[in-house]
Each structure stands twice: as structure tokens, then as C-alpha cells.
């Protein structure tokens, strides 16, 4: 829940609200950056660019790079979206902008 009382009519509070909106957006972008880095690494990284290297490792009956390209990256994608959804809910509450 929001700690600050909401009084958007008063100018100094409007200023504070703008600052808070900026900080909220920065927190969102920071989280986005981290998650998209993972998104890139598991698919384009492990599944494509590093596939020839990772394929020398065996993962059950799979070559590791092949597994990331056809299975692993998809599982990570799912986790990423739920992590984003969960973390954003917390950030929304922290800044008092939850819907």
C-alpha cells in the first residue's frame, strides 16, 4: 500500500507524484533489462550462438545446445513472464500504483 497520502491537487505533492512516477518507471525498466537479458541468453545465446559449443555436452539424451533450442528456452520463457508478473505486483504496491 502507498505510504504517502494522495493529494494531487497541491502543487508540491504533484511534484512528488511526478518524481514517484519517474522512480516507478526506472524500477520497471531495470527489471525489464534483467529479464530480457536472460531471455536473450537462453534463446539467442545458448540455443543459437553458443549451440555449437554447448553441443559437446550431453544432457540426458540431448546435446545441450539442441536442448536449449528445442525445449529449455521455452521453459525459461514461461518462468520469466511469471517472475515479471510477480515482481511488478510488488513494485506496483511499493509505489502505490497497483490497479
Amino acid at each position: 500500500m502507498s505510504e504517502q497520502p494522495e493529494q494531487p491537487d497541491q502543487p508540491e505533492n504533484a511534484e512528488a507524484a511526478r518524481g514517484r512516477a519517474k522512480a516507478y518507471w526506472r524500477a520497471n525498466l531495470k527489471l525489464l533489462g534483467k529479464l530480457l537479458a536472460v531471455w536473450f541468453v537462453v534463446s539467442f545465446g545458448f540455443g543459437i550462438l553458443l549451440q555449437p559449443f554447448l553441443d559437446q555436452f550431453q544432457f540426458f539424451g540431448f546435446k545441450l545446445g539442441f536442448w536449449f533450442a528445442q525445449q529449455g528456452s521455452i521453459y525459461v520463457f514461461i518462468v520469466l513472464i511469471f517472475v515479471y508478473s510477480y515482481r511488478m505486483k510488488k513494485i506496483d504496491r511499493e509505489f502505490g500504483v497497483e490497479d
Partner: protein
Amino acid sequence: MDTQTLIYFFVGASFALYIGIAIWSRVESTKEFYIAGGGIHPVVNGMATAADWMSAASFISMAGLIAFLGYDGSVYLMGWTGGYVLLALLLAPYLRKFGKFTVPDFIGERYYSDTARLVAVVCLIFISFTYVAGQMRGVGIVFSRFLEVDIDMGVIIGMTIVFFYAVLGGMKGITYTQVAQYCVLIFAYTVPAIFISMLITGNPVPQLGLGSELADGSGMYVLEKLDAVLVDLGFNAYTERTKSMVDIFAITAALMLGTAGLPHVIVRFFTVPKASDARTSAGWALVFIAILYTTAPAVGAFARINFIDSVNNTPYSAVAEVYKNYEDLGLVAWKDKNGDGVIQYSAGAPFAGKPDFDGEKRGASGERTVTNAPTENANEAYVDRDIMVLANPEIAGLPGWVVALVAAGSLAAALSTAAGLLLVISSSISHDVMKKTFMPNISDAQELRAARLAAIVAILIAGYFGINPPGFVAQVVAFAFGLAAASLFPAIIMGIFTKSMNKEGAVVGMLAGLVFTFSYIVYFKFVSPELNVADNWLFGISPEGIGFVGMFVNIGLAFFVKRFTTSTPQDVQDLVETIRVPSGTGGAHIH
């Protein structure tokens, strides 16, 4: 009951269900028609999105593509799932907060311009019609194979069903039928996959079976065996990359960005109650999609093994009945080059192009005569990749009800996607072109009538393309994703993540991305297909992946133009501020 009766029963029962839902969910306002009233539960929407997204291509063609492409087929698996991460993180919550009805609606308001809105409508219509023609064709093929009606009749039956629930129920009817269709299609996809995984590896979970040892006692892993057999027959190893790395990278990127920019997928996220629901809903959508997408590579690998085992070095007289059924449909052909009556299967095309049958004439072993001139190599078998999923249960000797389930499932996949596409086409016409641009004074009831009329016209056009498919349907799939990646996706992203992007920049960017990608694909696919080889490609990127470059063309030019034109008005900057915070989502409304 015999298989044919079971097929009629399963398909008939599923159709009755869809029509029942359509009648129950009739709508009376444009808000219900466009976005189902905006009150769909995120998990329900996730399931509907999965059915909306997974088309006849995902259900019927993808496993077959992977079976023949091996590692290179990964572009579809990563490309068509990774886009959901972008949707959930970069688009869906903000567009839901914006709270309007269509994708051009957002572009039009954010870039305070009817030109931008109409450019977005053009992109949307091109992308969606390309797609829908393929769905109608898929419906026709499934009908002709399983229900023994001809393809044209199949298309007409499919059109009638879609007509019922798309025109009566709009988004609301589509949402609930898509949920039912998801259940039908995922059951139909996984049940045979589990059976086949059991048969081949003894492991009932296909995702694990793909990494298991074969059940034949050889002690070899599935993929190891497949690599060995294929290399032996002169093919590339299954797990090896054959396309260039840069091309694989670009195609995957174009499919991901294109997925995130497809209007019929984006609008599904307008139907949930809150912005935060849009995030979770995208997660659920991907869960439901991943069930099929992680099963598909297993189905592909098993199908390839089954196919080689049941065809190679088998006399034509001993080959399974199912192949002869597909031979009658022209999807399988055999040219006995060495005249020994035995099918030899190996790398290379058996003859140039698709088989050209000599009427009903039969060769020495009873096979349909192919008139194409044979090639030099030893391969005698032609197979259309699309039969892999449809024929797999029969090849593996599964019971009749599984075969019937696959028939109902593939129709569910095609119909659910077709309906979603037709809805975005009709709402962009009635809402963006009519209400928002040329006829702002029409009432809600008139707009709803227009939306229904537009849906009817769209269904008729789609049906026409289904019956008279332009020869290039398969080839223009690249269009839909490439154009979405190069036009709508960057325009939406810049609209949310920059406040300064103005209408001039956005319009020039969209048009440039569109024209660049369009010309590149048309040049290599239609104008000079003989030049369509890696040496001539820009940066070594094939037409399938060029949308990735198109996106940079769009963004680059947009920022360039922005520098020399007027800045964004204050009220639009305020709008961007508002869509960035979830609070105060409220329902969608008309201004």
C-alpha cells in the same frame, strides 16, 4: 464403431459445442463485440489466446517441418514462443491500460493522427488476410482427408461454423469457443504423442521421451539413432545446423518480434479486467502454448523415425494402408527408379517439384504413376511434410478414436485462429476506418451492425481464398511475421517507451519498414526466385528473417525524421505517462 463413424461423431460433437456456445454468448454492444466486455479472467484469456495463436500451421505443419529440418526447425519453436515474453513485458500491460478496442486505435491516438491509424489498418489487414487464407485451406484439407467431402465443401462448412460464432458472438463468442477449441486441440495433440512416445521409448512424457533411449533394446538414444540413420541415408544429421547462424538468428528474431506485433494476439489482452492481469494472462497463454510446442519436437523426431522404418526398403505391396490413402490425395508418391518393387528412401528429391500423376493409371507394383522426370539420385519416395501429424497415429497403429480426435483437433486449431483473425479485420474496418475516421457520427448500434457486416464480408473473402488458394499461400507466411515485426511492433514499442516519438517519425518508420520488408520478400520470392540464395541476401539473411532488419529500418528512420519535425503535444506526453502506470485501468470506453 469403425474409425470413420468415430470421426463423424467427434467432429460433429465438437461443432455442436461451438455453435451452442455461439448462441449462448450473443452480444448487443460494440464493447462486447470488440473486447468481450473487458471482463475475461486472465487464465481463461490465456487459454483462448493459446487457441487463437495456434493455427492449422502449428497443429498440422510444425511437427512435420521439424521432422524434416531437425535443429533448423528450432527457429519456429523459439520464435513462436519467445514473442510472448516481449508481449508480456513490453506491450500487453500498457495497451490494456490504454484501454481501447484495436491496435490501430492505439497507434492513431498515440500518434495523434488518422494517417498513422490508417497505415496501421493497412498493415493489419494485410497480415491478417495472409494468415486467414491458410486457415481456411487447412480446414478444407482436413475435411477432404477425414470426412471424405471435397475441399471446397469443407471450406464452406468451416465458413458457416465461423460465421455463427464470430458474427453472433463477436469477441465474447470467440473467447468461449476458443477455450473449448483449446481443450479439444491440446487433447488431440498430446494423446497420440503420449502413445507414440510409449511405443518408441517406453516413456509416456514426449518431452522426456525425446531425450530417452529407444525401447528396441539397442541402448541408443532417440536423437543419436536419428542422427546415425539420417547420415547413413545421405541426409544431414538431425541435431546439426545446416542454415547459416546469422540466418537462424534473424529468422528467430523476426518470428519473435512478429508474434509480439500480431494484432489478433494483441487484442486478446484487451479483454482482461486490469493491466496486471494482462501480464499474468500472457504467462498463462505461454504455458498453454508450451504444452504443444514442447511436444512438437518429440512428435517430429518420432515421426521421422517411424516414417523411415515403415517405408525404407519396404516393398510397395507391404506398405501400410495409410500411405496409400495419402497417395490417393497426392501427398505421397513413389517412383520405382530401379524397378525392384521396393521403396528406397534417401536424401535428395525423387523428381523435380510436386508429383504430377497420370490420372488414375497404376504402375507395375500398383502405385500411382508419376509423370515427372526422375532425378539422378537413388531416392524414390516423395512425402508432403504436412502428413506427419495427421498420419502419425495411423502409422503407429493407434486406435480409431485417437485418429478421430486428431481430425477434430486440427479443425479446432484452424477455426479458432480464423475466427480471431476475422474479428480484428472486421473491427478495424467498423471501428478505425468508419467510426474513428470517416463516419464519426454513427451510433453504437450502427457501428455494431457495421462490424457484423464487415465480419461477413471478411469470411466470404477468406472462403474465396480457401477455395481458390493463391499459389503463394505457403510462401507468404513470411510476410505476416516480417511485416508485423517491421511495422506494427516498433511503432507500438516506441509509442510506449518514448514520449518524444512524433507522428511524422512513426508514419515514416512504419511505411519504411513495411515497404522495405515487402519489397525484399517480393523480390526474392516472386520477381527473381532464381536469385534466392544466401550469396545474394542482405547480410546473409533470407526473406523469412528480413523483418528483423526491417525493424531497424523502421526505428532508425523514425528517429531520424523525428529530429527535424515538431515535438509531441503535451496531452500525448501525458497519455504516455498514464499508460505507464497500472492504477486506474477501468473499463474500455468510447470517447
